[in-house]
């Protein structure tokens, strides 16, 4: 019965206006955001333009720069943080300030006089031809030397503590610490990145990540409208009771609705990914690189499917239990919180975000470093989706038996007609 019902539900959705609006929105987003295919530029030895900037891997430099930053904010008692992505200026109480002071003392061995101890970075910026320095924020920053016996691991633990005191989202969060010191990339660095894109990512994987990054933005929200429409349709057409009284089990009914919505959300993505996939194959052919033909498919299933599953499940659950507008509102808020987490950092913001960001078709090493997080994250949302669907089936079943939601004959009218 499930497959027949599934087919019927798909047919119904294919006849609904909202599905086509949804498709139009997805396609529009794809065209305007993902845009045209860009090739990777191979770095050349001694090229005039710079090889770009990279986060410093020199631990002493990271520690120094981070401590200098912390000391500066401590002395002004004015900390910058992005707890939910929005700028927040944090002022600490006396006790908390004292805790930060303690951290600074433990890390530097100094009790005071931090400002005087800060010195300019020793590294010199590469000079351009007219011998002026290129100035970029965060590059070769001022340093506050750490205590000699401070290991990097202990330093990280202190910084995590400081971040907690400030309330999260500060420059001392373990994800952010590495970015406090930046340096110029060398030819070798640039070459490594380029090679990784070609041989580790086999071109298509990097492109697939960018694809998922953009499409994840719309899929983190829009599917909720499909879920809400499907749920409210029964009420709107007063078809609830006729369906309630049928033989089909609640699991079958809800699962058919859910999976048909999921199927019709994911299918267009496969179709949309055909163009960039073909471009990847063509580009790989030119360079003589073997392209991962299934990359887009794998990324869509691993990255976008759990996200869609969650958004739909949440939508079905809330619209069945609370009401359609509430489901939409909750999803909008979730979306906004998720999209602005990480502030301006758009590459490798994963954590427990519904919408992880990876707005770069290269940066293979960053991807590999967050891959574990990504897997855990997606598993979480897939699990939550299952949980919400179980909840939806339960509520539907209870409504069907008349335990929840209404009484006597006016039950339809007493609920909101929307």
């Amino acid at each position: 019965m499930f497959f027949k019902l599934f087919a019927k539900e798909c047919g119904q959705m294919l006849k609904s206006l909202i599905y086509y609006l949804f498709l139009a929105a997805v396609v529009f987003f794809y065209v305007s955001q993902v845009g045209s295919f860009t090739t990777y530029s191979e770095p050349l030895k001694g090229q005039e333009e710079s090889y770009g900037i990279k986060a410093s891997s020199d631990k002493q430099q990271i520690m120094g720069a981070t401590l200098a930053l912390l000391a500066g904010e401590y002395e002004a008692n004015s900390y910058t943080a992005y707890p939910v992505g929005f700028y927040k200026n944090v002022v600490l109480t006396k006790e908390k300030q004292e805790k930060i002071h303690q951290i600074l003392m433990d890390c530097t061995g100094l009790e005071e006089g931090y400002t005087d101890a800060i010195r300019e970075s020793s590294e010199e910026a590469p000079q351009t031809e007219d011998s002026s320095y290129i100035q970029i924020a965060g590059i070769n920053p001022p340093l506050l030397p750490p205590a000699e016996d401070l290991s990097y691991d202990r330093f990280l633990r202190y910084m995590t503590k400081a971040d907690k005191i400030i309330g999260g989202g500060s420059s001392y969060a373990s994800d952010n610490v590495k970015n406090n010191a930046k340096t110029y990339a060398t030819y070798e660095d640039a070459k490594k990145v380029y090679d990784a894109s070609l041989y580790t990512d086999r071109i298509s994987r990097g492109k697939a990540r960018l694809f998922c990054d953009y499409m994840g933005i719309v899929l983190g929200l829009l599917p909720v409208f499909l879920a809400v429409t499907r749920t409210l349709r029964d009420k709107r057409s007063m078809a609830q009771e006729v369906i309630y009284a049928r033989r089909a089990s609640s699991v079958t009914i809800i699962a058919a609705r859910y999976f048909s919505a999921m199927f019709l959300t994911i299918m267009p993505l496969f179709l949309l990914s055909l163009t960039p996939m073909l471009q990847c194959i063509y580009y790989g052919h030119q360079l003589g690189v073997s392209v991962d033909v299934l990359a887009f498919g794998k990324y869509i299933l691993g990255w976008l499917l759990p996200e869609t599953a969650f958004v739909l499940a949440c939508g079905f659950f809330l619209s069945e239990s609370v009401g359609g507008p509430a489901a939409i509102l909750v999803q909008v808020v979730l979306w906004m919180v998720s999209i602005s987490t990480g502030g301006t950092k758009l590459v490798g913001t994963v954590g427990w975000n519904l919408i992880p960001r990876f707005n770069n078709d290269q940066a293979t090493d960053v991807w590999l470093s967050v891959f574990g997080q990504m897997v855990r994250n997606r598993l979480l949302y897939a699990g939550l989706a299952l949980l919400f669907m179980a909840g939806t089936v339960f509520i539907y079943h209870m409504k069907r038996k008349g335990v929840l939601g209404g009484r006597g004959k006016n039950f339809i009218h007493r609920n909101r007609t929307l």
Partner: protein
Amino acid sequence: MERILSIEIEHFKNHYAGHLAAALLLSLLAPVIMGMEALNQYQAGQILDVYFSLLGIVLLTPLFMPEQNKDIRDLLASREYPLRNIQLLRLLQAVVILAVLNLLVLFQMKLGECTFPFGTYFWCAMANCLFLGGLGIFTYGITDHLVIAYMIPVFYYICCYGAGQKYLGKFYLFSLMTGDLENKIWLGTAGILLTAAGIVIRNRKK
């Protein structure tokens, strides 16, 4: 006057309480999740643009919800008092609530010693809300489908997050973040026109 008052109260009690509660919750939650202290002009603008605009969708879009049911609509339409006026009264109610919440958020920011032009920002925030809400009302008028009416402005909002400025030009929502005020005049005007068009279309269709 009494009639107007009773229409307002009836609507408030029966249909609006949920939306109002959601909007109030969002306004009160703002300082918890965003920090409203010592913001400069652009950061304060970000809160209004990115966060407060959403209240326009929450409060304005469900304008026709009470008569979503066709029978109720026919019943109301057959009365002497024009349905359009009832809708306008509801709209007025929504706008007033929006203005109050707007002031609430602005005062919170002022108390937090943020620097921004109070009056200008009030109108700018209203313009954004009117535009998004107007888009919703217009869509509702055309499609008679509340979910679609929510979806269109929400998608517009997402687009502003994405490629936004390049495509949307003068109708780009998040312009306070870059200090551009001219956009708001366009947005506000378009919002009013969309709302009016939505109401006209809704009441013409029989």
